[in-house]
């Protein structure tokens, strides 16, 4: 409980500081760089969530513990949500800096790949009626899809040049303001904490739904 209240306060602080305390980073027009304090953590959480989902799927396939599959499913859904948010914020940032919402930058290409893979993953889950079969299939598909991701690393850079600010907000960059760095890392931590909180709620929800076989509406 105390962890959740602390997280709430911390996130409030970050939001206030990002808009009112920190100066905008050099090299970007106007105030747009402030969105990076939300965009980068979202992308980071999405990556983390998809990775966790893949690992949980493998654990399910090996041990056949239902909880591992609950974790895989919750993680995939949250990853999808954060991935979508990262796409939207990234698009806004792209419009403000490069003048177009979408230009098939390598990062944009790979994020679309991820969204498509996990879109298909949810379609697969909804299409298999048998519970155990659904879990196994979802795990298998998740691993199979994960194996295709490395190819993008080889292929995509051969086709387009990146406009992505590679090291503008890289914490290791010496030029970065210490104040900015603190709030940037703070934002990363806050988003990771938020993800863990949401993940645990989602897993508990799935567990109850599994018991009740869909008789409960949580959003009423």
């Amino acid at each position, binding site marked *: 409980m105390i962890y*959740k209240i602390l997280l*709430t306060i911390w*996130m*409030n602080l970050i*939001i*206030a500081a*990002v*808009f*009112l305390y920190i100066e905008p980073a050099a090299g970007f027009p106007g*105030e747009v760089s402030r969105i990076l304090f939300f965009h980068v953590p979202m992308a980071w959480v999405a990556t983390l969530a998809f990775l966790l989902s893949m690992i949980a799927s493998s654990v399910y396939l090996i*041990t*056949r*513990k*239902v*909880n591992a599959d609950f974790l895989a499913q919750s993680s995939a859904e949250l990853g999808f949500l954060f991935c979508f948010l990262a796409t939207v914020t990234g698009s806004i940032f792209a419009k403000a800096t490069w003048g177009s919402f979408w230009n098939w930058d390598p990062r944009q290409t790979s994020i679309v790949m991820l969204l498509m893979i996990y879109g298909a993953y949810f379609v697969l889950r909804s299409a298999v009626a048998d*519970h*155990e079969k659904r879990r196994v299939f979802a795990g298998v598909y998740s691993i199979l899809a994960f194996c295709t991701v490395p190819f993008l690393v080889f292929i995509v850079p051969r086709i387009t040049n990146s406009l992505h600010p590679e090291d503008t907000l890289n914490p290791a960059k010496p030029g970065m303001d210490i104040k900015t760095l603190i709030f940037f890392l703070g934002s990363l931590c806050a988003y990771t904490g938020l993800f863990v*909180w*949401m993940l645990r*709620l989602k897993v*508990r*929800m799935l*567990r*109850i739904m*599994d*018991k009740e076989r869909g008789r*409960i509406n*949580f959003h009423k």
Partner: protein
Amino acid sequence: MKTGLGFVAAVNLIIWAGITLYLFILDRRLKKLERRPGYRDHGGGDG
């Protein structure tokens, strides 16, 4: 310019407040459901 930023910050804070409120309510609701007599947490195996 600073007034505009203040507005954006306020919108962000309101959205964040909404999200937290939702999460806390969901948490309470789940706890209530978990406390019902029929519910047991199963640690493994396929159910």
